[in-house]
């Protein structure tokens, strides 16, 4: 609940004000029964005027209660609105800043439900707490105070129940929080299946797997419902147990009261009045438990949110002392890099190479040989386990993120297009002039098809760009990458859907248009990398050949094979 404190802190004053207003409203509403009994016992039967006067008093109190309650509710709503907005904002921002490893650990569906349902749960709780959290304590404290004055001994009998109640409630809620955590986990699983199926709807339909998917969904749906029920069955017991304790207290008061009356320590009238207040206190306790149940549910969610917000960055900028610069004229330099995703088997071993500024590196190798991993290390999605990567002689661990990212233009496999215009997808929120953008699209060979859209750059993409072809997607992504004329251009298998002619034209345009840019190209086709200054052949995470095309053709059997295999196979689109 540290999280709540953190985000509610700025609003404490406002919450206090709302609390006072609500208190006033509640008190004036509590006045009503008093005035009522006053009229019935003292005023009624005397004069019409007095009856109207006191009746008028009741109306005034009601009006005050109404206005104050509305005001307080609105204030509460405002506070919780701001609270939720800020918390969600930070949560989302943090989510974007998570490293690849951390995102993998949380998983996207889970992050998504934290941003949505979990935040909503906490939001709801903060709102309701402010509304319900006033009346109940007032009734409780007021009621207890009055009974204490009336007969401290009997009051103690009743109060003796409170520790029992608190222990029970505490015990139950400590059971409840993990149960609700389970519930939220199964929400994640449910969301995952929906998300997967929406993305894979074509395959599901093609294979007529509708029923299979129904069963798959049914499983997560049932588990979610099961967990909800499990948590609910426990939490539902709070209220009856609590009420039972309170009622037992009242029974004890009556029984003990009887003895006190015989011993002349108390009067029957006190016992009667006592019972009245007892009902009031019980009602208040009921509200308290209601808040409590809500708290339990939201505590589970708050914990999940805090988990993300409190995640320490694992990719941090290191000091130059620990990772000193080296003297080199290479632009990019890999030095004995080893890396493993799971800490067991190396996905990359002993990778060393360098390339000078404006040069080009091609990486080629079988599926799963570690090509993309190498690129991910260069982009510092992960830190390498051993060895180091240098850019301009600086260890990339020491380069501040903003400066680091500004060096790169990147196209990754399965890269990201979103539901917005073509222009927006190229600009990607950066301030890029129309002219620059057009130049980038020309380099990326995207000009022609964009112009062919009736709305040109204003053409709307659907989510994940499903309304354009694979080749068009790749060209848009390349345009995005080259728009800032980056120092380093990383193309991870990003022209695989282009035909031979376009691919060749693209290479030429890149060379001419970005002559100062160092290019790192991952490709399946020899033709895409054969003009590179340096070609690296990877196999199972090891470099098995390195050099230019001629050299590799002669000295690297695998490279030669790849090249041979593609000789007859020109590419057409």
């Amino acid at each position, binding site marked *: 609940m540290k999280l709540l404190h953190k985000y509610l802190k700025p609003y404490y004053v406002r919450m206090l004000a709302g609390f006072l207003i609500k208190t006033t409203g509640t008190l004036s509403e509590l006045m009503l029964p008093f005035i009522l009994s006053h009229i019935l016992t003292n005023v009624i039967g005397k004069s019409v005027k007095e009856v109207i006067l006191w009746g008028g008093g009741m109306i005034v109190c009601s009006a005050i209660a109404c206005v104050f309650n509305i005001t307080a509710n609105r204030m509460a709503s405002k506070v919780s609105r701001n609270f939720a907005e800020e918390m969600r904002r930070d949560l989302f921002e943090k989510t974007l800043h998570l490293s690849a490893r951390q995102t993998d650990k949380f998983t996207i569906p889970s992050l998504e439900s934290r941003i949505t349902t979990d935040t909503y749960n906490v939001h709801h709780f903060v709102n309701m707490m402010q509304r319900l959290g006033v009346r109940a304590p007032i009734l409780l404290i007021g009621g207890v105070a009055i009974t204490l004055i009336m007969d401290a001994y009997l009051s103690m009998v009743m109060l003796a129940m409170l520790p029992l109640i608190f222990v029970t409630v505490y015990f139950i809620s400590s059971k409840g929080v993990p149960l609700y955590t389970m519930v939220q986990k199964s929400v994640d699983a449910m969301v995952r299946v*929906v998300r997967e199926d929406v993305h894979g709807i*074509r395959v599901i339909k093609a294979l007529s797997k509708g029923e299979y998917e129904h069963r798959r969904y049914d499983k997560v749906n049932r588990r979610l419902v099961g967990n909800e029920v499990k948590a609910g069955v426990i939490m539902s017991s709070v209220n009856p147990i609590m009420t039972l304790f309170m009622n037992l207290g009242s029974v004890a008061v009556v029984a003990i009261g009887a003895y006190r009356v015989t011993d002349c320590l108390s009067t029957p009238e006190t016992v009667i009045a006592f019972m009245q207040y007892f009902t009031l206190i019980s009602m208040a306790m009921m509200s308290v438990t209601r808040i409590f149940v809500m708290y339990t549910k939201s505590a589970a969610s708050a914990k999940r949110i805090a988990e993300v917000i409190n995640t320490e960055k694992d990719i941090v900028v290191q000091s130059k002392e620990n990772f000193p610069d080296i003297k080199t004229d290479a632009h990019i330099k890999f030095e004995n890099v080893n890396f493993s995703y799971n800490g067991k088997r190396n996905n990359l071993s002993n990778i060393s190479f360098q390339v000078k500024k404006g040069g080009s590196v091609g990486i080629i190798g079988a599926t799963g040989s570690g090509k993309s991993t190498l690129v991910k290390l260069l982009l510092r999605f992960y830190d390498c386990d051993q060895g180091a990567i240098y850019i301009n002689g600086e260890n990339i661990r020491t380069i501040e993120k903003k400066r680091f990212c500004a060096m790169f233009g990147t196209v990754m496999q399965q890269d990201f297009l979103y539901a917005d215009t073509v222009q927006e997808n190229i600009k990607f929120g950066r301030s890029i002039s129309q002219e620059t953008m057009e130049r980038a699209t020309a380099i990326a060979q995207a000009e022609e098809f964009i112009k062919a859209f009736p709305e040109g750059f204003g053409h709307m993409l659907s989510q994940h760009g499903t309304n354009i072809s694979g080749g068009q997607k790749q060209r848009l992504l390349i345009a995005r990458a080259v728009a800032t004329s980056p120092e380093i251009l990383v193309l991870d298998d990003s022209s695989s859907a282009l035909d031979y002619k376009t691919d060749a034209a693209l290479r030429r345009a890149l060379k001419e248009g970005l002559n100062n840019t160092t290019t790192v190209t991952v490709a399946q086709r020899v033709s895409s990398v054969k003009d590179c200054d340096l070609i690296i052949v990877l196999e199972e995470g090891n470099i098995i050949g390195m050099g230019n095309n001629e050299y590799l053709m002669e000295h690297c059997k695998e490279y030669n094979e790849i090249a041979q295999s593609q000789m007859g196979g020109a590419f057409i689109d």
Partner: protein
Amino acid sequence: MIEKNEKRDYKGIFIRLCGYVLRYWFLFVPAVIITLLSNQLSLLGPKFSGDAIDAIAKVGGVDFDSVYHNVGMMLICYAMAAVLSYVLAVIMLHIGQKIVYTMRREVFEKLTKLPVGYFDTHATGDIISRISYDIDTINSTLSHDLVQIMTSLYTVLGSLVFMWNISKPLIIVFVITVPCAILFTRFRSKTIRPLFSERSRKLGELNGYAEEMLSGSRTISAYEREGEIGERFNTRNADAMDAYYRADYYGCTMGPTVNFINNLSISLVMILGGILYLYSQKGIVPEGTLFFITLGGVAQFVQYSRKFAGPINEFANILSEFQSAFSAAERVFRIIDEAAETPDKENAIHLTNVKGDVSFEKVHFGYVPEKPILKGVSFNAKKGETVAIVGPTGAGKTTIISLLMRFYDTTDGSIRVDGHSVGELTRKSLRGAYTMVLQDTWLFCGTIFDNIAYGRKGATEEEVIEAAKAARIHSYIESLPDGYNTILTDDGINISKGQKQLITIARAMISDSPMLILDEATSNVDSRTEIKIQQAMSELMKGKTSFVIAHRLSTVQNADRIIVLQNGEITEMGTHNELMEKGGFYSSLYNSQFG
């Protein structure tokens, strides 16, 4: 997106929601009975305690026998009340969860029946928002509130009878104020409803945006766009929160205002009752007439008024909760009511023993009528033939595949399989006749085994391994610590795109469909591996009618028929040699590699 039927039919939604509850009448009816019982018990408890106190206050000393008796009864009552209220809570929980379960299932099953085009225009996150947040919202009000209404009704009617018996004139106060309360809530609801709809919608949009951006978090990070995207998220976040606040701002007036009207009525009853009592006392109103009232009568009437007003107040609160449930329900029902793919014809033929003769006859098609994609495409594919489709990006190659699978229906012309127009066939049998490998690999969260076995019901372990071997992915799978039981998570980092594609190829290999569709099936596989799986692919294609879209000419070259598609029209058709001789688009493409 076309949101049809903008006019909101709240009555319809309400009836429909009640329908969900009533589906579980066997739980709902006991719930109502138990609620009434526990209400009765909660009245009995005070009665016994009253009797006990009477025994204490007895003139001439406390009557301990009576005290003990009543205390005992109290214990029994309270214990029973506790048990009943727990049972009630559990029943309500079950009703609620059953409803939620059913709704989620209905929404989900609908999703799998919607035409694929639906998902191009609806954000995934919004769909998720409906299936999680909106359904939860419905649940949190529906079952609980309906029981509340049922039992409140009982209290209201009961109190009314008593009040009627005590004093008819005093009821006039309620005749005035209750309609006021009703009018007020009705009036308010009109303002509030759209606000609640807005709230649900905005939250859905927010969710949609979050989902989309999260799926691109690596790219956002690589371009250091966290700030910018965060900003944009925030405008939506603020929007959603504003919508929430606005709904709350107006929604939260309902409870206190109706409460005020109730308090006002009690005050008025008090004033009016006081005056009547005064006149009755003074004899201006004679005993036995309509306006006569005693002091006890006034006191009781006030008591019952409070009982009567309580539920009305509750109604108002429930009503504002209902508003949010209604807007949520509307969004949920909209998916459930969305037009599914046109159902199979009544007498649709179930395609069996497929030979694999496919023909396109003057097929016209456009996703939107104004923009035709295919303009009169005709071709034949005989059993066992391989047809390659070639053409520039955007020419409509993938559209042909979508039509083959009947993801869409043609605008004009027809597609025939074994002589049957595809419209006459059941979708299931038609789609079952094809095996499809797409460029966009799709794997779900589950074991590798399950992902491969997905291709055919009841595939054995041997068959799965066989397929994986043929797709050249077996040794990789074996190298994983958990082998075939490795669970593929969402965006499985450890597995490359090429490997994913190989798994989908293995999935295709396991299927025994008579026809094959390969849309850039090996685009992410390196060419050496591709050559290795080529043989298996040829094996797979043997005897099957195959449709191939590929860049690699080697695949295309050996096709029985090559179709060149340009601008939605077939411009060239024939074998490789024929087309080369012809010297058209195809030959220029082919020759471009040498130039």
